[in-house]
Each structure stands twice: as structure tokens, then as C-alpha cells.
């Protein structure tokens, strides 16, 4: 089960905004899926190591050799907003809530 409060909390973490009907629907759908998923809780997995990578690769380190960077205009070419040679964003400070 995932309730309304949890849905809202998770949406905040994921930077998603859900309309009221989406919150309700998401809560119901995610609960269904989680009910199904929770079947793995029935398995005895004591002492079973987790699999993070199905294939282990060694020596995948990169030598410290400079490679060409992108030209400045190419780096910024897809940016929605640009100023002073950089990517323009709303200031994070403006969001800070008064203490």
C-alpha cells in the first residue's frame, strides 16, 4: 500500500507535480503494482548476495589523457536559456524558504 501522503512525498522527491485525480490514480495503481512486487518478500533470501552487475569487468579505468572538449557554441546549442556564456536557470536562492 502506498497512501496519498507517500505519493505526494515521492512526487516531491522526483520533482513531479500531480493533479488531484493523478494522485488518487497513482496511489491505486502503485499499490496494485507494489502488492504484486511484494511477493518477493516471501522468498528466503538470507545469505544471497545482491547482483549489481551481471558481468564483472576489470581494467575498465580510463588513462588520464586529455580529450577534446566541445566547442562552446555546441555545448550551449540545445540550452533552453543562455546568458553570460552559460546555462541560465532560476536562482536556487529565490526558492529558499524563510527560516
Amino acid at each position, binding site marked *: 500500500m502506498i497512501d496519498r501522503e507517500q505519493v505526494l512525498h515521492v512526487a516531491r522527491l522526483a520533482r513531479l507535480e500531480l493533479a488531484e485525480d493523478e494522485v488518487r490514480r497513482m496511489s491505486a495503481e502503485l499499490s496494485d503494482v507494489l502488492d504484486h512486487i511484494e511477493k518477493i518478500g516471501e522468498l528466503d533470501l538470507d545469505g544471497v548476495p545482491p547482483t549489481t552487475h551481471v558481468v564483472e569487468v576489470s581494467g575498465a579505468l580510463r588513462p*588520464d589523457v586529455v580529450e577534446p572538449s566541445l566547442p562552446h557554441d555546441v555545448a550551449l546549442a540545445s540550452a533552453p536559456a543562455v546568458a553570460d556564456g552559460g546555462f541560465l*536557470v532560476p536562482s536556487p536562492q529565490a526558492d529558499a524558504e524563510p*527560516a
Partner: protein
Amino acid sequence: MSEFEPVIGLEIHVQLSTRTKMFCGCALSFGAPPNTLTCPVCLGLPGTLPRANAQAIHFGLMIGLALESELAPRSIFHRKNYFYPDLPKGYQISQYDEPLCRGGRLGDVRIHRVHLEEDAAKLVHAGSSGRIHGSDASVVDFNRGGTPLAEIVTEPDVRSAAQAREGLTLLRTTLRRLGVSDVNMEEGSLRCDANISIRPAGSSALGTKTELKNMNSFRFLERGINAEIARQEAIVRAGGQVVQETLHFDPQSERITSLRSKEEAHDYRYFPEPDLVPVATSEEMLAAARGAMPELPAEREERLQSLGISAASARQLAWRSELGDYFEAALAHDGHSRPQAQPLANWVCNELVARVGEEDPNASNVRPEALAKLVALVSAKAVTVSNAKLVLDRLVADGGDPEQIVE
């Protein structure tokens, strides 16, 4: 004696002096124009993948050896997830529960761990050209984004601001000797956060800690920690409770302000980075790191003491390696007027430092051989101590040869 005892742990971020970034081949930036040292990987473009820099891992192992840490045969990168404009992927690649190095010590402070991660980009306030819908805006420069960082975390063994400063000084010297970083606090290649709590003196309980962020000089580190200790003491004396939060020290006003809003409640959702494989520390890598180790401050301190130098001077010369280097250059000065080690050490540590302060004496007007000659003149009683001090004043001001000044 205060009724409270501070308990302080340090988290130190060190930018590593590799040629390229942690996970891509872009050169590190030294004042390059914004966004000229970026590539699809460090801009976090769709479809790109990180590749760990072998040299950064080599430097990490050297730091671990210098701090007498246990080097992990296998360490793992995790993703630390949060949204911020200086974080192009929406997560920082960092090490979490399987770091490169565990344990160790820095002087009398125990080390908890050393791990590797990538630096964030730089966020600058936009000028008048950059406002969004009439609101304040910032500009992101990704040149710094992805610079390799070693994060060194101490145990909460520090008991005063002065001790924190002393520990950081030793660390800076050690890292400089290793050649793994520029360790310049003002330029941000060495950054220190402090976790601070207080408890009744004699108690072993731990109080609620606050995190004081990014103090960008040794002086501010000391002042910031003292200010925070005072703030916590005032709260507790007034019957209040310290709140766990992240704080910022403003050196101008000496005020402490809360850094993050409540919305930012930490939930970093760490999980193993699937785009990177575990770092397997091979025998070859260990041998290369061991082979690259220079003489460290502790070893230098011992060696200087064996020359007959007092413990206090030996420590000062070893921990401030530029003083040590100056001293050794002076001592090596060849000639009939070779000074003795102890008097020379005294002149470097007391008289010269009193005159040049925090500056590197190697960059001063007083050449090492000049000081060596002056100390030899004093030892030979060719000049009195008080006159010699006047000569040193002249040397600091104008340079020159002490013999000529004496005449």
C-alpha cells in the same frame, strides 16, 4: 574552563590535480571561459556514460597510504540523487558504503574514511542580462563539474577550533607533499566542512550536531567553528535545543545562517552506479601508489628531530612544509659559515615567521643562504642577537647580503 566540550568532525574535500576530470577526458579548468571545458559526458547529455580516471584512483590510494588507511581491494561507486542546477545528471557519482579507503589517522585525529567523487559545477549569479520573468537568475558553468574530489572524513575527535585548524594544516602539508592537489582553500581546491556538537564537559554522550559548510580559509575555519560553538552554548544555556541543520558562516558579518530549506529533507536514494564496474585495487596499483610516496610530515618531523632540533620546531617545520623546505635549503647552504641546525630552526620558526606570517618564506626577499649566513654570524658572535634582528628586518624589506648590511 567551559562547562561544555565541543565534539567536532571534519569533512574535507580535496580537488585532485589530475589532468582530466573524474569521469571524462575534459581537461581541468583553471579560469577557462565558462563552458569551454565540457563534453557530452560532463554535461550529462542523454546516452552518455562515465569512465573512471585511473590517476584519480592512484591519488586516492596515495592519500590512503599517507593517512595509514586500510585500502579496499574492491570499492564501488554509488549514485547520490538530488536535483540542483550544478549537478547535470541529477545525481552525483560518489562512493558510499564501500569506499576506497577506511580508517587511518591524521596526527592525533582518527580518519573515518577517504572516498572519491565528482565535483559539482559552478553556479554564478547572473548579471542584468540574465533575469527570468523578472526574477533572480543564475548561470551554470560546467567547467568545474566533474573535477575529481577526494573526500576525507575524520572521526569526531577534534575538541577545539584551534585543533581543527592544526589538523587541516597537517593535512594540507601532507597532500602538498604527495603532489595530489593544489590544496588552496581560497581557490576552492581544499574545502572543509565541520560537524559540530557540544556536550557537558566530562560526558561521553553525543549532542545534536550541525554541519557548518565550506569555510574557505584557515582563519574562517577557526572563527566559524568558534562562532558555532558559542551559538550552541547560548542555545543550551537558555534551555533550548540545538536543531540538526546545515549552516553557513558569513566571514564578513561573522553570522551563521541556515543553508537549506526544509523542502530539501535529505533522501539521497543511494544505489550502486550501474554504469561503472567496481574498482578492483590490483597489486600493480598498490605498488605504483607505494612507489610514488614521498617523505611525509611525520617522517620529516622524526628526521629533523634526529638533527637535534627541538620537538616543537621539528613539528612546525614538518607540518608547514614550505617552512621545512626553506629551512632545509638554508641548512644545505654550503660554505665555511655553516650554521647549526637548532639555532637556524629557531630563527626560521620564530624570527622569520614573525616577519613573513603565513607567506611562503621562499617567496620573500630573504634568501635561505642569507638567513644561514646571518645565523652563522650570530653563532660566531660577529653580531649581537638584537643587531641580527635589525639585519633581518632589512633583509625582509630589501633583501641583500647580511655581511654587507652588518658592515
